[in-house]
């Protein structure tokens, strides 16, 4: 295992549980760490809880959501932090890149002015020339003029780079990116993620796209039903997966020249279900055994599965 050493992680999540007000226990005990300059991909099906982890780290959960466990960013505990503490952390320590760049920018503001908000929100002034400089560094052509135009004249790929410029304006040590490229073409997605990585921040990348995760992350954590079922180096975990769930997900990817892939049988369990008695994946698992229903398997060597041992 190649996780960051204890104490050096920019993001350290331990025993995180999130229950929404409607009773949905979306996250049921998640441990993960992202080291400085590292890109961690959090992958899984929709409803697996990966976006809830991202929102918990950003402090953007809806009112009434119960959070227990630890979220440490740069050594600061954020579970139970008051709104002022969150405001102090956002921007300076944690940056956020969302899914839809057009929704992220105020259509009435010039893109440069929107990026300048990153400084102004903290009562500071952007250094002269800093915004075009950053945009240019992220590969935006003619950055000076582009910053003076409004978002609707930008392309989605370029505007997502502007969103990255805004998220990293104050040099945060951690960037949370929730499906940042799902609105972009494959080629643009690769370039955008390469730029995100080049900013040098630790990145928590939430994605449902396994191929994208394989190309652009150092490590991956595979989530299922509110828990992490497998973690490991991206190359290793996504080419020689050990957990049956990861194996099934990878087998569901289409390959040219092969027959159409099989989807996983059944549906993922509802987040509103009660506490799990055994492995929540067991009903859909090909390698299910009798002992799978005994306990929720604890991760050993990065894999939470009795059959994989």
């Amino acid at each position, binding site marked *: 295992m190649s996780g960051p050493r204890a104490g050096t992680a920019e993001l350290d999540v331990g025993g995180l549980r999130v229950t929404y007000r409607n009773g949905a226990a979306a996250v049921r005990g998640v441990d993960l760490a992202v080291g400085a300059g590292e890109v961690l991909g959090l992958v899984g099906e929709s409803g697996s809880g990966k976006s809830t982890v991202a929102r918990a780290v950003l402090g953007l959960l809806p009112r009434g959501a119960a959070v227990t466990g630890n979220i440490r960013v740069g050594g600061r505990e954020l579970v139970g932090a008051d709104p002022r503490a969150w405001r102090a952390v956002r921007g300076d320590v944690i940056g956020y890149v969302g899914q839809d760049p057009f929704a992220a920018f105020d259509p009435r503001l010039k893109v440069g002015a929107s990026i300048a908000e990153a400084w102004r929100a903290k009562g500071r002034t952007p250094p002269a020339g800093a915004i075009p400089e950053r945009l240019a560094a992220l590969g935006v052509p003619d950055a000076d003029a582009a910053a003076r135009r409004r978002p609707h004249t930008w392309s989605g790929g370029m505007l997502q780079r502007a969103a990255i410029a805004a998220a990293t304006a104050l040099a945060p040590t951690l960037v949370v990116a929730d499906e940042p490229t799902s609105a972009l073409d494959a080629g643009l997605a690769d370039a955008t993620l390469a730029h995100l990585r080049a900013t040098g921040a630790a990145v928590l990348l939430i994605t*449902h796209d396994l191929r994208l995760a394989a190309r652009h992350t150092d490590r991956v954590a595979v989530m299922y039903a509110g828990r992490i079922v497998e973690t490991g180096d991206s190359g290793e975990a996504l080419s020689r997966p050990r957990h049956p769930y990861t194996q099934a997900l990878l087998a569901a990817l289409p390959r040219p020249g092969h027959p159409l892939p099989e989807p996983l049988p059944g549906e993922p369990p509802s987040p509103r279900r009660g506490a799990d008695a055994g492995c929540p994946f067991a009903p859909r698992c090909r390698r299910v055994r009798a002992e799978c229903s005994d306990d929720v398997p604890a991760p050993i060597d990065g894999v939470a599965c009795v059959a994989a041992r």
Partner: protein
Amino acid sequence: MTDPSTEPVVVARDLWRTHGRGPRAHDVLRGTELTALPGEIIGIVGRSGCGKSTLLRILAGLERPDRGSVFWNPGTRAGRPAPGSVAAVFQDAAGSLDPNWSIARSVAEPLARRLTRQARRAAVLEALRSVGLGDLDPSLRPARLSGGQCQRVALARAFAARPGLLLADEPTSALDASAAAAILRLLRRAADSGTAVVLVTHDRDAAAALTTRLLGMSDGVLTHIG
């Protein structure tokens, strides 16, 4: 007499479409041609903004080209496909279903209105079963469904009217691998039963694995790529 199985479901000739006006105007389609036969799966790949989605909307009869023409079989006199003969699924799976409607009501929407209650209900259940959602409570609202389930309900609605042409605009790009695999299989099954499928996607692997013809779109023109 032509063999009905080789009669094209849709023929698009020399489509031109301009978006915007004045200095911002640009040609999205520049003489696009497309013919779809029953049972074909045509994949269209291309950069975003290349006109793929506009082409699909024109093939659906939801938008008219500035120039050129589309012939549907069966078509109606107004230059539109017959109701229910064309169906579509979209990238925004949740947005494809009315949030205020039950799943059953959505699936039943394209069914002929003169059907009896029992016949409608049977058709809805059959359509839901055909997409692997036979166990789902048809009185649920879409908010209770995952993205993959929403997309399968949208496909059930599409299949319910037994369309001759099925248009799919990035139906899998917001879905995880397993849900996407289920959708691809359903598209294949629709084609096997004689429906012509036009799939717009940026997932070249999916397009290559699924389609019988792969077209690339650039500068408003379709070119054969495999």
